[in-house]
């Protein structure tokens, strides 16, 4: 028995585990995927007022989102045009303008260079401030989700997302939502393994709470169906909202009240956008996972929880309890998922088993691997290599 022999399966049905551990592939992903695709950065409620800003890293590059006085949300590289210090050093805040801490060059909320310290020193060379604003990047929002794209040649966000937006536009965009929860952690795993974890439902029995509360985890066929869209996006949900969690069986029959628009009470819906945004909706509350890959085996994951902005205290408490029950850092499910993907990476790095099998075919039931295969087809297209073979 040799763990380095490829399985006798179609090449689309297995993955070479070195795509998760190889440093060169990791660097290529930054260039070919993260610097090219639309990337979720934050929810619009985090930059709601004029002067609100949010800094982040995309494809390893520091970026800044700013809500302008004219109401326009703009994006820039968070890099001073003088000597390249980061203009904003906080994760978020509200400002009238941005002054680089190093040499005090000052930028407006629109990115324009407004003033330089000791300007007389530049008179001899006639420094043109109009040419030295913060370098802009593309920003678009959809259903309250704010995305950026570092590639000027890419199509629009809506073109990139295609038909899958129909699954999120109503629940996320039907009422104003806001971020009420944020936590982050550096997982000792490859970023794609975290995306896979949310994409495949075969692991549902890992979670004690799912074994109790998801009627379809043990034995029954799920009422959900996998939905596969172009560009590597996928999700799973039921057309008439009949994929309902049995909260009563878990002793939590009061957590799913006041479902979001378009959602049935207790309904579960999952959307995974290429390359790294996961949207989990449990009837009345939303979880968003965003990733910042740091190294082949290090991934910063940001978790957000969203509720309805106009919530009463009582309703917010219900949504919060629902969210925290499964998804918070002290939730029932999240710790188990993290242990699983970190275990995978440790073993993949050791190298004795070279291939992962993604061969389930079940008429698009959620435990079918068709969405994983579609995801890696997109990965392969963008990377110009097969995910089944690293040479």
């Amino acid at each position, binding site marked *: 028995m040799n763990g380095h022999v490829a399985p006798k399966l179609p090449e689309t049905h297995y993955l070479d585990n070195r795509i998760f551990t190889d440093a060169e592939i990791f660097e290529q992903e930054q260039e070919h995927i993260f610097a090219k695709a639309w990337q979720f950065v934050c929810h619009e409620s985090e930059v709601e007022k004029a002067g609100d800003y949010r800094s982040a890293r995309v494809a390893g590059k520091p970026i800044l989102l700013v809500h302008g006085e004219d109401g326009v949300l703009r994006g820039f590289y968070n890099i001073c045009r003088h000597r390249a210090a980061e203009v904003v050093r906080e994760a978020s805040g509200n400002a009238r303008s941005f002054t680089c801490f190093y040499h005090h060059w000052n930028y407006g909320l629109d990115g324009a260079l407004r003033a330089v310290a000791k300007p007389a020193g530049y008179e001899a060379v006639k420094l043109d401030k109009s040419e030295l604003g913060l370098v802009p990047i593309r920003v678009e929002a959809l259903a309250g989700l704010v995305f950026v794209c570092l590639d000027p040649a890419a199509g629009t966000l809506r073109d990139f997302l295609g038909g899958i937006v129909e699954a999120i536009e109503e629940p996320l965009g039907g009422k104003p939502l806001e971020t009420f929860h944020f936590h982050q*952690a550096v997982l000792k795993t490859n970023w794609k393994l975290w995306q896979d974890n949310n994409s495949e439902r075969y692991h549902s029995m890992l979670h004690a709470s799912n074994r109790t509360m998801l009627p379809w985890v043990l034995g029954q066929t799920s009422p959900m169906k996998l939905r596969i869209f172009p560009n590597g996006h996928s999700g799973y949900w039921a057309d008439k909202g009949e994929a309902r969690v049995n909260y009563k069986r878990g002793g939590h029959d009061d957590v799913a009240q006041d479902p979001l628009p378009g959602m049935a009470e207790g309904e579960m819906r999952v959307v995974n956008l290429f390359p790294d945004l996961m949207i989990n909706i449990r009837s009345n509350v939303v979880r968003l996972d965003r990733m910042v890959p740091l190294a082949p085996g290090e991934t910063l994951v940001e978790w957000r929880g969203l509720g309805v902005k106009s919530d009463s205290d009582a309703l917010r408490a219900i949504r919060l309890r629902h969210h925290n029950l499964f998804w918070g*850092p002290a939730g029932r499910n999240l710790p188990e998922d993290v242990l699983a993907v970190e275990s995978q990476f440790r073993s993949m790095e050791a190298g004795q088993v070279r291939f992962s099998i993604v061969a389930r075919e079940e008429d698009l039931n959620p435990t079918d691997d068709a969405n994983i295969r579609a995801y890696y087809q997109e990965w392969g297209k963008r990377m110009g290599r097969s995910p089944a073979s690293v040479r």
Partner: protein
Amino acid sequence: MTDRDAIADLVQRTAFLLDEERLAEWCALFDAAGTYELTAYSTEIRKWMTWWQADRETLEKTLKEVPQHVRDPARRRHVVGAPLVELSGDEAKATAQFAIFRTMPDGQSSLYLVGRYEDRLVKRGGAWLYAAHKTIADTRMLDAFTHIPL
């Protein structure tokens, strides 16, 4: 034992029972209407967050299910400072700083979480119990998530 000593003892016992995972005994430190809360402030969204909030009954139910979960294999050890206590008859407030260390099965230890407890206590039948036991976490980047209170 003075009330101050009894409260200091309670604060240390709370951490000890968590570290030993004697979770039913930990729940018994709460008054019948007592609550547990785990909170942190996010500089990213500029809001206080609640990561766990439960009354005693819910805590008992949730913690009974702990053995069913796949869990962080590390052992945790609290180091809790002496509490500052404000007495007011049969009620009291206590604040204590703490750190939690995490030791992996291979013996490697690391700092897991620092923060403070802000507690409200009531005296019932001569014993001090939690009316509200609140963990305020400074650390928000955890090396592992948790199925038990912190």
